[in-house]
C-alpha cells in the first residue's frame, strides 16, 4: 500500500479491505476506491449441505471470455470446444499410455505435444487416436522408452504406416528432432518377455554385445530394429544354452520369420560370426563390413557381368558356326543351280539339307521338325538370300517373320489373346527404328510423324476376333454386369414408385449467378431482389410499388417531420387506433391473446378503414390550405394505409402483430409529443 498516495491529504496510510472491496485513507477518512475486484475465494452452501466455491474455473490458457455466467451449475457446459478437445485428448493419452505402461511424466509430455498439435491445427483432418498415438510415440522416441510404433498400432488396430505418416508430420511441424532409434533399447524388453530367468541379465548383455557388433558391421541401417534385436537375442539365447525357437522369438519381436532368418544369414557373413564364443566375448574386431545389401548388390552385379561374358563367348562361337553354315549352303547352291523351280527344288532337297543343318548344330532348327516343310524351305530361302550378316539375333527375327502368318492363323481360332501376346513382342522389335524424335505443334492436332499406321492396325482386332473377345469379356465380367443390371432395375422400380432419390453432388460453386450489371443503385438492388429473395416475410409486389414512385417518398418525409401542424393533423390515427388493443393487453393473460385477438382483427379493418376515411379528407384539406407541397402527401399516406389493410386481409395473424407494433409506435409518438 505504500505505493499509493491519498488524493486528498497526501497520506500514504491506506487501508484496503479485501472483503468489502474498498480502499480508505486512514488519515483523512476519504474512500479512495470502492468495488475493488477481490481475489478471494468465496464458498457457498449447496442444497445437499455441502459447500462449493463461488465462481468458475478458468484455465490459464483459456481465453477470458466466459459465455455462461448465470447458470454455471453444470461443469463442462460452459467450456469452450478447444478445452473439450484437449480434455478428450488427455483422456485418450492416459488410457493409451497406461496400456503401454508409460509413466506420468511421459503422459504429461505427450499431452503437451498434443496441445501443441491442436494449437497448430494439426488435428484437423486426422483422427484423434492417430494424433494421440503419434504424440505418445514422439515421447517414446524423445525419452528413449522401449516402445515401437508397432505396439501402438497393435493396440489401436491401425496400420503402422498410417500412424507413421501422422508421426512424421507431427515431428516435422512441431520441430521435434527425435533421435534415431537405437535397437539396444529393445533388448531388455524382449529379453524380459523371453523369460530367461536368472540369466536374464547375462543373456541381454550378450545380446547387446552382439547388437553392437552388428551395428559396426552395418547391419542396422535401413533395418527394423526389432528384427535385429530378434536375431541378436536368438544367438545370445543359444550361446547361453537356452532353447528358444525362431517361432518364440518371432512372437515376441513381431517380425516375419524370413526377416529373422535373413538377419541371421547376414550375421553369418560377417567375420565376427567365425569367432568362438569365448573369442567373441574377448576380442573386438576392428574391421568393419560393408552393408549386407550392398554386398548382395555387388555380388549380383558380378554374376551379371560373368553371364554377359559367357553370352558373348557363346555368341562368338555361334558366329563361327554360322559362317561355316553359310559356306556350306553356298557350296550346296553351287552344286544344284540348274534345276527347275526354286521352291520345288528346295522341297526336294530339304531332307538332305536338314540333316546337314542339324549336324552343324543349329538346335532351334531341330525343334521345328514338326513344322511343315514348305514353310521351312521358305525360311531358309530368305535366310540365304539376305546378305549373310551371321548375327544370331537377326536370324531369329527373320525366322519369326515368315512364321507369323500360319501361327497366327492357327492360334486366332480358339484364343485370340494368345495371338496378341505373341504379336507385340515381335513387332516392337521390328519397329525399333521408327522411334525418332519429332516436335509436334501443341495445337491439339495429332502429329502423325513417326507413327507407323500399319503397325497400329495390328493392335486392332478384326471382326471375328472382336466377337470372340466380346464373348470372353462378357463372360469374365458377368457378375459385374449382372449387378449393374440389377441396380438399374432397382432404380427404375424406385422411379416408378416415386421414392428414388437422385444423388446429385451439390457443389456450392456450381450454380453461378450472372453478375449484376446496373447503372444505378436502385436498379442493382431490384435486380438482386429478383435473383434471390431476402425473406419470405416481405411482400415483394408492394416493395415494387414503393420503388415505382420514389419521388413521393421524400415529400412525405418532409411532410411528416418539419411541419408541426400536419404532424398534429396526422396524429389522430394514433389515438384512434390505440384504444382497440389496449384493454386486451391489460386484462387478458398472454396465452389467450391469440384467440381473443382474432375477432378484433376481423372486425378491425372495416372499422379502421372507416375511421381513416373519415379522418383523411379533412386532413388533406387542411394540408392543402397550409402548404401546397403537402398536397401530395395526403394520398400517399392514404395509399399506405390501404396497403396495410390489404395485408391485413391476407394474413390476419401477422397484421395483428403489425397493428400491435404500429400501436406501440403510436404510443411512443404520443409520449414524445
Amino acid at each position, binding site marked *: 500500500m505504500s505505493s499509493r498516495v491519498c488524493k486528498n491529504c497526501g497520506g500514504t496510510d491506506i487501508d484496503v479491505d479485501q472483503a468489502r472491496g474498498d480502499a480508505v485513507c486512514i488519515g483523512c477518512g476519504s474512500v479512495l476506491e470502492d468495488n475493488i475486484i477481490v481475489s478471494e475465494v468465496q464458498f457457498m452452501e449447496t442444497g445437499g449441505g455441502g459447500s462449493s466455491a463461488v465462481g468458475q474455473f478458468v484455465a490459464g490458457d483459456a481465453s477470458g471470455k466466459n459465455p455462461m455466467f448465470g447458470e454455471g451449475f453444470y461443469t463442462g457446459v460452459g467450456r469452450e470446444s478447444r478445452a473439450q478437445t484437449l480434455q478428450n485428448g488427455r483422456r485418450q493419452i492416459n488410457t493409451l499410455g497406461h496400456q503401454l505402461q508409460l509413466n506420468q511424466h511421459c503422459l504429461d509430455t505427450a499431452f503437451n505435444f498434443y496441445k501443441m498439435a491442436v494449437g497448430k491445427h494439426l488435428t484437423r483432418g486426422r483422427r484423434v487416436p492417430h494424433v494421440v498415438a503419434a504424440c505418445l510415440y514422439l515421447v517414446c522416441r524423445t525419452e528413449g522408452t522401449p516402445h515401437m510404433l508397432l505396439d501402438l498400432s497393435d493396440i489401436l488396430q491401425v496400420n503402422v504406416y498410417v500412424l507413421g505418416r501422422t508421426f*512424421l508430420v507431427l515431428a*516435422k511441424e512441431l520441430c521435434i528432432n527425435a533421435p534415431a532409434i537405437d535397437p539396444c533399447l529393445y533388448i531388455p524388453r524382449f529379453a524380459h518377455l523371453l523369460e530367461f530367468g536368472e540369466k536374464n541379465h547375462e543373456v541381454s548383455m550378450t545380446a547387446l554385445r552382439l547388437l553392437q557388433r552388428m551395428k559396426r558391421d552395418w547391419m542396422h541401417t535401413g533395418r527394423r530394429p526389432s528384427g535385429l534385436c530378434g536375431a541378436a537375442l536368438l544367438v545370445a539365447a543359444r550361446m547361453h544354452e537356452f532353447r528358444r525357437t525362431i517361432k518364440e522369438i518371432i512372437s515376441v519381436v513381431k517380425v516375419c520369420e524370413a526377416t529373422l532368418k535373413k538377419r541371421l544369414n547376414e550375421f553369418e557373413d560377417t567375420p565376427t560370426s567365425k569367432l568362438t564364443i569365448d573369442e567373441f566375448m574377448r576380442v573386438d574386431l576392428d574391421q568393419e563390413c*560393408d552393408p549386407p545389401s550392398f554386398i548382395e548388390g555387388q555380388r549380383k552385379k558380378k554374376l551379371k557381368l560373368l553371364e554377359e561374358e559367357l553370352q558373348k563367348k557363346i555368341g562368338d562361337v555361334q558366329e563361327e558356326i554360322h559362317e561355316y553354315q553359310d559356306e556350306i549352303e553356298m557350296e550346296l547352291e553351287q552344286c544344284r543351280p540348274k534345276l527347275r523351280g526354286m521352291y520345288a527344288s528346295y522341297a526336294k532337297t530339304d531332307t538332305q539339307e536338314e540333316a546337314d543343318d542339324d549336324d552343324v548344330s543349329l538346335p532351334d532348327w531341330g525343334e521345328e521338325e514338326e513344322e511343315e516343310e514348305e514353310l521351312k524351305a521358305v525360311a531358309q530361302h530368305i535366310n540365304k538370300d539376305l546378305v549373310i550378316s551371321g548375327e544370331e539375333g537377326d536370324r531369329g527375327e527373320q525366322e519369326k517373320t515368315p512364321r507369323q502368318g500360319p501361327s497366327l492363323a492357327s492360334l486366332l481360332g480358339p484364343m485370340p489373346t494368345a495371338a496378341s501376346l505373341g504379336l507385340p513382342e515381335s513387332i516392337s522389335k521390328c519397329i525399333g527404328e521408327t*522411334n525418332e524424335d519429332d516436335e509436334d505443334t501443341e495445337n491439339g492436332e495429332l502429329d*502423325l510423324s513417326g507413327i507407323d499406321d500399319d503397325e497400329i*492396325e495390328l493392335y486392332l*482386332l478384326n471382326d471375328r476376333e472382336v466377337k470372340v473377345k466380346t464373348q470372353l469379356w462378357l463372360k469374365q465380367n458377368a457378375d459385374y454386369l449382372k449387378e449393374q443390371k440389377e441396380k438399374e432395375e432397382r432404380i427404375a422400380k424406385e422411379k416408378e414408385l416415386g421414392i428414388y432419390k437422385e444423388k446429385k453432388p451439390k457443389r456450392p460453386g456450381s450454380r453461378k449467378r450472372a453478375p449484376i450489371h446496373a447503372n444505378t443503385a436502385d436498379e442493382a438492388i431490384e435486380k438482386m431482389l429478383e435473383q434471390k429473395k431476402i425473406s419470405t416475410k416481405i411482400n415483394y409486389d408492394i416493395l415494387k410499388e414503393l420503388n415505382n414512385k420514389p419521388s413521393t417518398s421524400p415529400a412525405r418525409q418532409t411532410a411528416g417531420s418539419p411541419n408541426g401542424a400536419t404532424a398534429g393533423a396526422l396524429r389522430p390515427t394514433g389515438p384512434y387506433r390505440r384504444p382497440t388493443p389496449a384493454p386486451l393487453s391489460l386484462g387478458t393473460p398472454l396465452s389467450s391473446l391469440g384467440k381473443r385477438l382474432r375477432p378484433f382483427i376481423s372486425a378491425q379493418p372495416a372499422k379502421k378503414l372507416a375511421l381513416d376515411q373519415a379522418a383523411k379528407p379533412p386532413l388533406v384539406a387542411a394540408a392543402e390550405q397550409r402548404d401546397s407541397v403537402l398536397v401530395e402527401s395526403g394520398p400517399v399516406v392514404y395509399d399506405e394505409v390501404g396497403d396495410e389493410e390489404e395485408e391485413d386481409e391476407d394474413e390476419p395473424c401477422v397484421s395483428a402483430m403489425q397493428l400491435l407494433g404500429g400501436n406501440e409506435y403510436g404510443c411512443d409518438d404520443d409520449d414524445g409529443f
Partner: protein
Amino acid sequence: MESSNDVALDIIITNVVAVFRTRCHLNLRTIALEGVNVIYKPEYGKVLMKPRITASIWSSGKIICTGATSEEEAKQGARRLARTLQKLGFKVRFADFKVVNVLAVCSMPFAIRLIDFTKNNRPIASYEPELHPAATYRIKTLKATVQVFSTGSLTVTGPNVQTVATAVEHIYPLLFECQKPLCK
C-alpha cells in the same frame, strides 16, 4: 548429368509418367473389345498396353501413360496411343501433354551413414527404419524427393528429368559428407 565432383554419376531413369487429353469422350468398352492388348475392368478405369508404355484411359478422355524411360519416349508412346484411338473411330485430338513424374535411380560409389545424414539435415531429412529402410529427403524448391539408402543407392522422384538431375547434384555434397568408404 554429372555431379560437380570428379566422379561421374549415372542417373538411370526408370519411369516417366505423363498425362494428356483427347478432348473427347471415349467408350471404354469399345476400346476394350476392339483393341488387342487391352485389359478392361469395368469397376475402374481401364488399362491399355502398348509396346513400351502402359496407359490408363478414362472415359472422360484423360489418359495417363507410364512406363516410358525418357520424356521423348513418353510423348512418342502417347501419340501412338492417340493414333490407335483414332483408328478405333474416336475423334481424338492430342492436347495438354505433360510429363508429371519422373522416377530415377542413381548409385553413389560409397555407402552412406544414414543416421549422420539425417542428423545433419534435420527438418528436411527423415529416417524411420521402422517404416522405411531409406532416409527421405525432400527438396521443396525442386519438388523432388530423394530416398537415400545406406548402400549409396538413391531413388529420385521429380516432376521432370531436369529436376531429377538437379536434385542429385544438390544432394551429392550432402551425401559426400556422410560417406563411409567401402572396404574392398
